[in-house]
């Protein structure tokens, strides 16, 4: 895998506010890379520096071997961009926007009508932008980002403000972009989105990148805790659970037991204990940590705060 985007020591300030501080990372060809963090963490600024829209105060960026700021037109011909909360002219028709965008790029391989069809917008061809739903607008922006058959696609807060159904449909589209061999760089403050979509993520807070890895490995690295919840009438079971390897605490309220511990083996050890001691359970569930917990652990607060 070769890196398509290389960011090294990038810093960007607005007045006295440091938006991005010493950001360094690489994005590999063909992966979906996510920059995740709360609103105002510096995600958009970082992305816009990479797209060549903003000039970093310090640091170097290379995208497809180009300097995004100095070679911005060359770069923009080869990348596709979707901006956060962008709008188009209220009364521009869907096909007009696609037609305009298609005329701006040197490559003429992509068939705009086919693109609209793939994105489920064929029947909205003649609709005005202002009359599209939130999901349809985002799909149109994806179409515009793909119109030049770009090598890298940038998606900034793609599904913010969409209902869960529209969100899932957009996720499928993004996976489809990767399947066509493109590299995707996205930002999101939705941990579920990052977990389901990204091959690798960088966690950013207060302009600093805290850690970078695949969502699974981040969870393993930072959150080894496991929790098992189970219901049993067998009140003597508490003693058995205490002896399970890896268990750190057992508590019970009524017939509901909460068993906390760490390590990947905890769940199977608990199951083993249940069968060995013939403990009859009426409910059994596990709580596994996710990216949200990783974020909480690394920053000391929830991403929603």
């Amino acid at each position, binding site marked *: 895998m070769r890196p398509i985007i290389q960011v090294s020591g990038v810093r960007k300030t607005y007045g006295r506010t440091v938006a991005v501080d010493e950001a360094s990372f690489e994005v590999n060809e063909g992966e979906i890379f996510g920059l995740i963090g709360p609103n105002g963490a510096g995600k958009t600024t970082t992305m816009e520096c990479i797209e060549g829209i903003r000039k970093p105060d310090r640091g170097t960026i290379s995208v497809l071997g180009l300097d995004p700021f100095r070679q911005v037109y060359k770069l923009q011909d080869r990348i596709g961009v979707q*901006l956060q909360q*962008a709008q188009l*002219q209220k*009364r521009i028709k869907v096909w007009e926007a696609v037609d305009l965008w298609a005329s701006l790029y040197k490559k003429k391989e992509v068939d705009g009508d086919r693109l609209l069809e793939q994105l489920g917008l064929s029947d909205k061809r003649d609709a005005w932008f202002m009359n599209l739903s939130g999901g349809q607008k985002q799909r149109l922006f994806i179409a515009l980002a793909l119109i030049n058959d770009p090598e890298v696609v940038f998606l900034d807060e793609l599904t913010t403000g969409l209902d869960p159904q529209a969100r899932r449909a957009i996720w499928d589209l993004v996976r489809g972009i990767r399947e066509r061999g493109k590299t995707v760089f996205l930002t999101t403050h939705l941990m579920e989105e990052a977990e389901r979509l990204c091959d690798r993520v960088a966690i950013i807070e207060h302009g600093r990148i805290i850690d970078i890895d695949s969502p699974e490995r981040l969870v393993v690295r930072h959150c080894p805790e496991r929790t098992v919840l189970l219901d049993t009438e067998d009140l003597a079971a508490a003693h058995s659970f205490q002896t399970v390897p890896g268990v750190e605490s057992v508590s019970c309220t009524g017939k509901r037991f909460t068993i906390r511990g760490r390590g990947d083996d905890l769940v199977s050890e608990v199951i083993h204990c249940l069968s060995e001691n013939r403990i009859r359970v009426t409910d059994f569930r596990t709580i596994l940590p996710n990216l949200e917990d990783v974020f909480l652990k690394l920053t000391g607060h929830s991403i929603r705060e």
Partner: protein
Amino acid sequence: MLRGLWKLTWIEIKVFLREPLGAFGTIGVPVLAFLVLGRVANLRIAPTSLGATGFSQVSLPVLVSLLISVSAVLSLVTIISIYREGGILKRLRATPLRPQTILAAHVIVKLLLTAATLVLMLLAGRRYFPAGAHVPWFSFTIALLISTWSILSIGFLIASIVPTARFAQPIGAVILYPMLAFSGLFVPVEALPPALHAVALAMPFTYSVRLLQGIWNGDGWLQHGSDVAALVMVFLVCTALSARVFRWE
């Protein structure tokens, strides 16, 4: 990039005409105003080479032409600030389109609109002109376009300072309309007190009025070389300033 300019210009024209009030307000209102005012005054608006520039003789077509021009500039200011607020300018910039191309498309749209409104106005007002009178409509249109083009550059400056789209129209109006007052349209510039006279000479509209009145009266272009030069200067200065202060987002 010419292809992009042409496409963008054409789309902006269509988008503008789809705006229910936009098209009527900027094209219909000046034409109607001209007809109503013309009727009220029961004018015979003739070009005169006598140099008599009585309001009823010359000023009405010049006044209405300048109103067309100002409304084009106000419409530019509003559109630019709406586009900035909605992130449309930013979205267009994140393509291989050059920033100059995006702004040029808007200037072209406004100039075409100005020309179209003026032609409609002259056609609709034909009955006020005495038979056989020679209205130098072609030169007059060119003069109005030069003037509008120059004032549009002030529009970009105004668009740079308006904080949100809601303020675009009022701020633009507050800046532009008083300029009209000192332009020599209502009171000859020479008749103003010295202080105001100096102010008037700094206003681009003063040169617009001189140029438009002169051309309407049948003057040649050579006589108004200095007015055209002043308008070009205004364009250059304002464009250089806006290039520094213009905000895209």
